[in-house]
């Protein structure tokens, strides 16, 4: 196959995918470029290394909550309680650490575990009594917010003092560490490219063209090195960003390369087919809600570390909506079975950029909410239109 031919087949397959409604993360990337272009035009400081580093650190906590939301959306369900679980998890951690004098590691573990227990509880009610997930988790939103107020007690605010917990969101690693990591990741991507091709060749399977694979690799490597160059020009690599990326890479691996992940997609695509194939549909559902609760609580602890305190407002306001909006804007379908955990990052960047850019322009919350709402509506519209495209193509 010549290079020109493989470029052409690559373009044709892209065209077919778009026409059949399999748009993936294309719209969100284009949207992100557009948003960055507009904000840079309005205020050149937007693209400065200082601001972009802030942006990365700002999206970490909500991004981790979004990873859990992606898992739930893949089932075609929703979890409205993540904001309250975010708040309650961090409140449990803060009370144990500051007021009860627990060491920080068990306090964090207890906070995270609170989220796991709550998620399992939601999953149990959803599967056992067949209550729609949005109702179960709406009840959860109220209940766990009440629990958060109760745990925090009358004072309402607990300032964190333990140096380790404060470090999580405020630690920066020097550029040398970042570059080493970037080189390792890019080398791993390249090796993976060759390993997959060799294994397919060994199994006698057709190999795709080189052009598409190399183009993809070049784009990924460019993004990784580009982001690293930006971070290196400022304070270095924020630990919170590394934590978010670790969660995303880990869950991407689980979703795309393990049986559990495959079964999540199967249940989200056609629960009846999954049940007939012998998959424990309810087991998968409970596990996913448990994971979502766990991630929400962990996000809350990261958020508390950034705020250096936990109060009545932790996890309230736009935490829930931003987490869901990020997942949907990133291209994960509300209708189940389609999406990737990377939408937590790409969608999170879109929302983070809007918040950050408008703050630079000294715009108030009114504009921020309206713009975020508009972007969310656009993303959901793309999802719905793509779904119709798929149904047409599927006939």
């Amino acid at each position, binding site marked *: 196959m010549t290079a020109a031919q493989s470029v052409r087949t690559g373009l044709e397959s892209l065209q077919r995918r778009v026409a059949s409604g399999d748009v993936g993360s294309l719209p969100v990337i284009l949207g992100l470029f557009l948003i960055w272009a507009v904000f840079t035009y309005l205020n050149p400081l937007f693209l400065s290394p200082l601001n972009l580093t802030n942006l990365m650190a700002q999206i970490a906590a909500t991004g981790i909550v979004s990873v859990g939301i992606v898992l739930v959306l893949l089932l075609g369900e929703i979890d409205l309680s993540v904001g309250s679980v975010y708040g309650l998890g961090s409140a449990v951690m803060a009370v144990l650490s500051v007021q009860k004098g627990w060491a920080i590691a068990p306090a964090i573990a207890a906070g995270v575990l609170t989220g796991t227990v709550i998620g399992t509880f939601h999953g149990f009610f959803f599967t056992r009594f067949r209550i729609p997930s949005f109702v179960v988790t709406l009840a959860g939103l109220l209940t766990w917010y009440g629990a958060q107020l109760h745990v925090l007690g009358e004072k309402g605010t607990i300032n964190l003092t333990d140096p380790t917990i404060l470090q999580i969101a405020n630690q920066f690693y020097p550029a040398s560490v970042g570059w080493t990591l970037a080189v390792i990741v890019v080398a791993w991507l390249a090796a993976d490219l060759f390993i997959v091709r060799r294994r397919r060749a060994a199994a006698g*399977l057709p190999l795709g063209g080189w052009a598409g694979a190399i183009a993809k690799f070049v784009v990924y490597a460019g993004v990784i090195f580009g982001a690293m160059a930006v971070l290196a020009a400022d304070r270095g690599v924020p630990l919170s960003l590394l934590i978010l990326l670790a969660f995303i890479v880990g869950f991407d691996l689980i979703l795309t390369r*393990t049986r559990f992940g*495959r*079964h999540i*997609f*199967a249940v989200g*695509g056609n629960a009846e087919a999954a049940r007939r194939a012998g998959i424990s549909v309810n087991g998968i559902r409970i596990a996913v809600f448990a994971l979502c609760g766990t991630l929400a609580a962990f996000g809350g602890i990261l958020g508390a570390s950034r705020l250096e305190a936990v109060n009545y407002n932790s996890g309230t306001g736009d935490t829930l909506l931003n987490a869901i909006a990020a997942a949907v804007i990133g291209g994960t379908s509300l209708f189940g079975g389609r999406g990737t955990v990377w939408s937590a990052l790409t969608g999170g960047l879109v929302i983070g950029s809007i918040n950050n850019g408008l703050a630079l322009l000294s715009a108030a919350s009114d504009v921020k909410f309206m713009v975020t709402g508009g972007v969310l509506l656009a993303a959901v519209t793309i999802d719905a239109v793509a779904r119709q495209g798929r149904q047409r193509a599927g006939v």
Partner: protein
Amino acid sequence: MTETGGRPDGLPPTATDRQPVLQLRGISKRFGAVQALSAVDFEVYAGEVVALVGDNGAGKSTLIKVMAGIYIPDEGEIWFEGKHVPVHGPRDSAALGIATVYQDLALSDNLDVVANLYLGREELSSPLPLLSEERMEQRAREVLKTLDVKIPNPRNPVAALSGGQRQSVAVARSVMWKAKVVLLDEPTAALGVQQTKQVLELVLRLRHQGLGVIVISHNLANVFEVADRIIVMRLGRRVGTFNRAESSEQAVVGAITGAEFGKFKPQE
């Protein structure tokens, strides 16, 4: 019913000395006041296509569900390869090698063909329990090739396939796990002419590979294209058995409706 020992009228002479791969004896099933099946005998041989025909409510689907283990009969016995076997649920039936292809396909649209063929039976690599995609794709391609199912790329999601291709994938999925008997419920309903042809060809290939194939269909033209024997149900009873080669559509229609004409021989 006058039949005894599961030897119905009209068996092809070559089949009389063989043992049916699946045999039902005297199956009765009642739902409340409705007698859905009354002492029905049924048999299918390896390498044979049996069409099960009858009007709505004749008991075809109930009979198929008894074979699939979904309904437990009130009376009667199920014999598989000459042995009386207990069937207490779909798992027992599947363990025997009875595969059911459901009318609503039971495929996950969002997953690709390989993932659908292996759904619930994914192969893992060692030492890390990761999906062994290459091995699964290799075997999936082999199965599709053996059954002559033409799919441009088994890595495309099922949503991108035509109705006939989807039905073929559903059939391939049910037979690739050591099936000996395949139950197809209206496999060509809602398919176009070309796609119907694909599925009928697939049915013939299943027969060629030595499987016992049972097809429920309302379309007698299709039935006459692929079936070796045609078993007619009416009001919960088996009322006729026809060798495809020696019978006419008219006679089968007569048996379905209960009208007396042609060479139809009632068995009551």
